């Protein structure tokens, strides 16, 4: 078992519009990318963020950037009452705990 954080070049989060939060994991090695991407499932993301699995909207593998993109429903629309992160740029830390 290895941590994704040890092999990923980029682990980031950002708003994808005011209602969605998107995570990018990027790799530099095709083989690692192929290995890791198989282990990233909606169920694991839901578990990591403790959200219902149907809130994991999309997981896309983007070959040209050796990237896995995960998009979830934002906990609340950007900037609405109770907001903690208007840009959504600091919501990625739990992904450091992903293993493969």
């Amino acid at each position, binding site marked *: 078992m290895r941590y994704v954080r040890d092999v990923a070049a980029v682990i980031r989060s950002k708003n994808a519009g005011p209602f969605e939060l998107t995570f990018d994991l*990027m790799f530099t090695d095709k083989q690692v990318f192929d290995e890791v991407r198989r282990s990233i499932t909606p169920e694991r993301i839901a578990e990591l963020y403790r959200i219902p699995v149907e809130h994991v909207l*999309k997981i896309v593998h983007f070959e040209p950037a050796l990237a896995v993109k995960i998009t979830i429903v934002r906990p609340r629309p950007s900037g609405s*009452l109770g907001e903690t992160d208007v840009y959504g740029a600091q919501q990625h830390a739990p992904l450091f705990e992903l293993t493969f």
Partner: protein
Amino acid sequence: MEEIRVLSPTAILGYGFPVSSFEEGLRREPHVIAVDGGSTDPGPYYLGSGKSFTQRQAVKRDLRLLINAALDRRIPLIIGTGGGSGARPHVEWNWEIIREILAEEGRSARTAVIFSDIPKELVLEAIKQGRTAPCGPVPELTPEAVDSAVHLVAQMGAEPMITALEQGADIILAGRAYDPAAFAALPIMRGFDAGLALHMGKILECAAIAASPGSGSDCLFGRLGKDSFILEPLNPARKCTALSVAAHTLYEKSDPYILPGPGGTLDLSAAEFSELPAGCVEVRGTRFIRSPQYTVKLEGARAVGYRTVCIAGVRDPIMIGQIDAVLQAVRERVEDNFENIGDYFLHFRCYGKNGVMGELEPAPSPAHELGIVIECVAPSQDVADTICGIARSTLLHYGYPGRKSTAGNLAFPYSPSDFSVGQVFEFCVHHIMELDDPTGIFPLEWRVIE
């Protein structure tokens, strides 16, 4: 024409750029200078309040360089999403800066100002006819949401900008616009492939963010040919790589292969990114798939009240050990004191515990010190001040079980401790609306300075 050249000076008008990079770009004889003025990223306040999230002096500095360069070379300058959010007050704010620069520089120019505010009746009618749909995980659009919006805009495509170009605009100042539109308008007008033009615009709108190292405050140059486009950094400190450009395609969107926009979808499933010498990257294979029905994205924000915040720190280990119970007790005291004051939103944010991630935080165990932000949002500033103030004083002197630090529970970095921050807004419309005419709802006004 074999090639069309587009100079993108900066990611957002007002973010700045090095003059040396800009001059490198001008040496390559661009056919158009285009710049994106806005974003929804800074949140609903700016669309709601009518204010820009960029600073006036910074926008004026950038614009003076852009206007002089464009007018000197008789090439158009196109500004998308003027004033940050693109509603009328934003556009007028931006126009005032342009007018001032033209006066100071003693220059004449024909500026096409294209507004993107959408009459509410039009949207209400569209709801009735079933011509609106949620954009992402949002509820169906309701007449109430439309009525409550302070500002309601639609993202224009390239079409209204093309009309302005055809009529000889020196400068185009657009309201809310699809980000790539300002960059793609001239290429599409000249008959270049819309898929490539829009994809190039999608990358250029963030300027050098797509280079490596990335920067939102530096220029990027685009050359669009018949079946590919080439991106070129203008600062020797940066280069574009296949990875940096492909990675940028992921930025701020949910699906990098399918990018919906006004009038159709950009399909990147066959896009190829290849590296050329001198830090350039060539992109080919992107396709624009026109949808049978033209659609635009609507954005609206409404006022929800007034906010007051108080910032304080806690270092006492006994209090930190029971922080949730302490905050809950304080909340109950406040509620008890002001039973009849009406609705308000009282919130305690605990930095050092779960201040950044809230309910998504997987490890909410407190650190040795906590930063607490007490916040109240209420229908009036007076009520927000009152509730925040009473929450602060109650927390300061609250006698929790086992308390040894009986002089006060909070460390305030500031006097005054509370800040009245004014009106608060939220997004209330984020929907798609069908449209029969891509230009009709975006009125064009000429502002001519002789």
